[in-house]
């Protein structure tokens, strides 16, 4: 972990009509770090990452990536710079087999430049590289899972496919929008080491999650959002013991009640 922030979000604000979905949010993330973002439904987490990745235009504020302001750039340019994202509602190419799903990111200018996935050298046959990535991420080649049409796969594989699509770009930063949600306990248990492996591979991650236990297990720092505002940012212990966070999640009256059982 170096001390240089890879991404600095400064005062980002997004207004939909009369609703301020993201209100003056600022945070930094260092290279190789995992930052968790939590908050109740509708607190603006997904909007925030849509702002960072250029899928929606921000009203004001700056998004500095490697010291350069990327706010206002189109989504594909931002992805090209190395910020990959997953979608909360999975967006595979349903009509294509899984490994063909990865041909598309491997076709991108960034993959051609970086050599895709492991990088270095010339990008070989895209089908083969795609199958390699899928195998790495837990698609059993022996049972022909990479060859199955994406629409026939269960949620667990589709979530992994989302991650695989990010990996194919050889990104520096991956923003995961609820990769654990909708998965069974055992599926999550197998995803956690995968996330840790990505971090060891030098990838910085921002993770939006509702599964707090698993998130706290992997995240270096956690930011809590509510009504589009930042409530607190700190280590898992700091966040868990914070009075305001408990208020956000359980309401002010209930928090004492809950603490009896905690």
């Amino acid at each position, binding site marked *: 972990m170096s001390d240089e922030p890879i991404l600095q979000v400064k005062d980002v604000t997004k207004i939909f009509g009369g609703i301020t979905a993201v209100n003056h949010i600022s945070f930094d993330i260092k290279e190789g770090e995992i930052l968790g973002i939590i908050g109740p439904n509708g607190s603006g987490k997904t909007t925030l990452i849509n702002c960072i990745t250029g899928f929606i235009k921000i009203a004001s504020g700056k998004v500095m990536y490697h010291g350069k302001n990327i706010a206002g750039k*189109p989504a594909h340019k931002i992805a090209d710079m190395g910020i990959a994202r997953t979608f909360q509602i999975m*967006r595979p190419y349903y009509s294509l087999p899984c490994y063909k799903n990865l041909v*598309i*990111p491997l076709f*991108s200018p960034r993959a051609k430049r970086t050599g895709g996935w492991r990088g270095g050298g010339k990008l070989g046959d895209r089908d083969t590289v795609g199958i390699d990535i899928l195998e790495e991420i837990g698609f059993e080649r022996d049972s022909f899972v990479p060859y199955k049409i994406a629409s026939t796969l269960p949620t667990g594989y589709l979530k992994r496919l989302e991650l695989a699509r990010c990996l194919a770009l050889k990104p520096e930063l991956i923003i995961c929008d609820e990769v654990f949600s909708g998965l069974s306990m055992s599926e999550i248990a197998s995803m956690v080491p995968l996330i840790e492996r990505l971090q060891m591979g030098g990838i910085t991650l921002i993770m939006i999650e509702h599964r707090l236990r698993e998130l706290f297990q992997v995240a270096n720092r956690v930011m809590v959002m509510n009504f589009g505002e930042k409530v607190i940012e700190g280590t898992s212990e700091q966040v868990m013991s914070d009075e305001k966070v408990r208020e956000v999640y359980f309401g002010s009256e209930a928090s004492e009640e809950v603490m009896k059982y905690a």
Partner: protein
Amino acid sequence: MEERRKERLDRGIKIRTDKIYALMSWRELSYLTLPRLVLIVGMLILPFVIPSAYWQRVISIVCVYALLGLSFDFLAQFVGLVSLGGAFFIGIGGYLAAILNTSLGLPPLITIPAATVIGAAISTLLLLPCLPLRGVYFSIVTLMYPLVAARIIEALDILGGTDGIMGVESFSSNWTEQYFIIFMTLIFLFGLRRLVNTDLGLVFRAVKDNDQAVKASGINITTYKAIAVFIASGVGCLAGACLVHIYMWSGISLFALDFSILPIAATVIGGAGTLVGPVLGCFILVPISELLRAFGTLRIVFYSLILVAFIVFRSEGIMVYGQRKYHQFERWVKI
């Protein structure tokens, strides 16, 4: 009464495993190549078996429509852009070929490729503004352009005005005309089929499936939509250029709605998303429309009835139905 359901099983033939064709016998080889051979050979012997010059001309027109149908099916089913402007491509290609031929005196062998490429570039440029938009805008704009173009030529009295450009050179003979356009249809049919399975074609299909995910993969979707429109409008312009050299005349009727609607109808009948479907559909619809000519305006009624019947009873189209029957066993099983 016991309940039954239809079970469908793929035919047990290992056609290929990961890019290696594993053909074990002549039977399997013919299973794969026979449908393609029937189509190719069938189209190539058509000019021989059809006796009258009138019907030979109809075959040429069928191929013009087939090219338009291919262009429509490719854009709509593999890129997700529903083009209602077949007439625009025909018009652009047709007028370009006519101008190049009459003012510069170039032979058809040069005017047709030139009109294809220049026409595709012009069409793509004009459609570029609506490519970043999602939704029906592309369809509406493509529907408007042929109407606008025809009225501009009429109002400003340019390019021959309502009389059109006459004295366009014809193909050197009936045979060259027919074989040229039949070959073009076959080349673009199999070329496009191949294209949609290459990596570039996968990007096109991904844009249709899910453009947000393509953006998130660092690919500029507008660029790829533009490439696809260039290809499709090129096919359309080629058809237009051929048509002008067949009729030896280019006029505002090239922008007629027929050229936009008939290919779409042919795609519905033939089976969308197969690329062969529109070609087959044109071979059914265009001759029928010629046969019904005797009925005068009543032919539109017959024509519409056929279309409605297809949409109601076989909305998937002939080719999709045929391919399913060919590749799968069907049997009834008790539930």
